[in-house]
């Protein structure tokens, strides 16, 4: 087995046992990137020199006998909307194509302090707005399982990088499904933590009441290790929670007989791909066979989630993106007066989807419409939260598909924004409710593409999600899921 095929946990153990160095591991991933990146395009920026420096430092410290973080020497890829000090951070937008942050996001600092070599910054939909990573101003990322297909989005670069063996772990961000949906398309785990669990400081804002940083990983234990690292209160983010953070990796043992599962009717709709539904049901049967209580549950306001989300998120975005005016950083289109400078910079700097959302949001917040759109949507959000709180009185986990279909073809939905928005239909109500949600790979479609199942728990219960994922893993549900048929033309893996 090659080093780049191994999980973060395995790579950590090999280093602790002194069998492999951080430099060897990092070299293996950098070589893998060189080999497959031309056909995947997962990265906007690569940072091999910095990664090797970190690895050399880790090896030195280990040699000296220093106490190291379990993830020391385990490389990582980071979505390009997380600020990295002195390293290009573009949000996949022309408006930030020259932006060199003077500071790092709190989560990026945490990765660095743990000794994780940063391999590079991953491609995404511009400003995290999209479900396919096709909205990047720079490049289209391809799904490693089938390079004619999208990796999902908006954290498509991070998901593709992990799936293709270019990084054992990655960070993405999830506003309305942007970690979970690409994870399901690429056959990896994707976790959206409880809103406030992870600091948003240095995450370039899209919709502040929804944005949350989350990991993409190969298995539950890897996911737990990186969640440990990035969780916790940050004085620099007033919405980060003062809650204590448990050691998520400490106990991943699940007793299925004590588990109560609500099968979300709306997220297993008759209109979904039948194989997606069958795979999810097969998983749930496994829990049931081993003693879990399984019942159908309805979250009655789910059908209103899409409407509420596509008012709230664009409204917040239109406000957050007001800062891109060509004055303090980023693209500047010139102009003889301020308004011309602002309008030209924004008109030329933003892509079509970002403009659409700014327009919807500006409209929904404008005088005369605020009550009917934004305020109404915030009230619907309350109803959606109540659905969840009611369901969590009876169930530990709410389960459904992570996406109605497996990965679709590149270009298939780019002409119809509404069709693209519908891709997130399984993911957005969890985001509106602020609850933790995990997408796990649960098998392959007959067409050879991964299928994802989404599990949701009440606030702060990321632990139960990881335990359930570990249980499925143990039962052999997603072992042979490190793939890349599309990349294996010469016998590859």
């Amino acid at each position, binding site marked *: 087995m090659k080093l780049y095929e191994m999980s973060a946990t395995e790579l950590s153990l090999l280093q602790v046992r002194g069998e492999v160095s951080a430099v060897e591991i990092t070299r293996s991933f950098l070589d893998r990137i060189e080999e497959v990146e031309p056909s995947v395009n997962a990265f906007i920026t690569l940072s091999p020199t910095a990664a090797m420096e970190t690895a050399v430092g880790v090896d030195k410290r280990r040699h000296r006998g220093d106490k190291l973080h379990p993830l020391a020497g385990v490389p990582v890829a980071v979505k390009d909307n997380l600020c990295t000090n002195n390293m290009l951070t573009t949000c996949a937008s022309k408006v930030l194509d020259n932006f060199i942050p003077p500071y790092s996001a709190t989560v990026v600092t945490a990765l660095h302090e743990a000794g994780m070599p940063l391999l590079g910054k991953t491609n995404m939909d511009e400003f995290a707005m999209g479900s396919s990573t096709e909205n990047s101003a720079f490049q289209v990322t391809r799904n490693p399982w089938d390079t004619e297909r999208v990796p999902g989005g908006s954290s498509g670069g991070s998901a593709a990088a992990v799936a293709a063996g270019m990084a054992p772990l990655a960070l993405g961000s999830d506003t309305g499904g942007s970690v979970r949906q690409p994870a399901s398309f690429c056959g990896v785990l994707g976790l959206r933590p409880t809103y406030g669990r992870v600091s948003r400081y240095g995450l370039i804002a899209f919709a502040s009441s929804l944005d949350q940083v989350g990991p993409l990983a190969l298995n539950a234990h890897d996911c737990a290790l990186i969640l440990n690292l990035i969780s916790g209160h940050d004085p620099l983010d007033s919405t980060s929670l003062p809650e204590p953070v448990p050691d998520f990796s400490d106990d991943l043992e699940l007793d299925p007989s004590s588990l109560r599962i609500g099968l979300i009717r709306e997220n297993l709709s008759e209109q979904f791909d039948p194989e997606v539904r069958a795979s999810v049901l097969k998983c749930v049967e496994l829990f049931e066979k081993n003693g879990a209580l399984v019942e159908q549950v309805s979250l009655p306001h789910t059908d209103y989630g899409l409407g509420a989300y596509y008012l709230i998120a664009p409204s917040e975005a239109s406000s957050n993106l007001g800062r891109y005016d060509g004055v303090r950083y980023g693209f500047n289109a010139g102009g003889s*007066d301020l*308004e011309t400078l602002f309008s030209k910079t*924004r008109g030329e700097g933003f892509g079509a989807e970002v*403009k659409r959302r700014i*327009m919807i949001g500006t409209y929904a917040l404008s005088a005369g419409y605020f009550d009917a759109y934004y305020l109404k949507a915030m009230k619907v959000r309350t109803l959606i939260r109540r659905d969840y709180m009611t369901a969590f009185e009876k169930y530990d986990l709410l389960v459904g598909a992570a996406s109605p279909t497996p990965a679709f073809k590149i270009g298939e939905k780019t002409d119809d924004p509404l069709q693209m928005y519908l891709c997130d239909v399984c993911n957005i109500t969890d985001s509106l409710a602020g609850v933790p949600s995990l997408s796990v790979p649960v098998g392959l479609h007959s067409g050879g593409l991964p299928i994802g199942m989404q599990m949701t728990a009440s606030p702060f219960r990321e632990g139960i999600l990881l335990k359930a994922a570990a249980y499925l893993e143990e039962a052999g549900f997603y072992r042979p899921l490190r793939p890349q048929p599309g990349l294996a033309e010469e016998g590859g893996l």
Partner: protein
Amino acid sequence: MTVDFRKEVDYVARLARLDLDSEEKERMVGELGAILKTAQKIRELDTEGIEPTSHVLDLPAVLREDKVKPSLPLNRVLQNAPHRRQGYFRVPSITASENPAE
């Protein structure tokens, strides 16, 4: 209810300080009308007496200690500025500009 965005598109683009060409405006009219029509499904719901959610978790606001801490040095803050002069961000002259729209 359909939304005729044609009447709104110029006004909203101006509010958002977003230059759109005529082709973009034409597309926006169709696309935004359709999106808003879908979003309007929420109007079916009775939300009388329902409090809006602005923060998902009912936690008290966390306040930091009111103490001055070092900020980034000026040259770092200005490092990305397209135009700067003497420690300031530079913009087109405001007082001299003629801007009939204002």
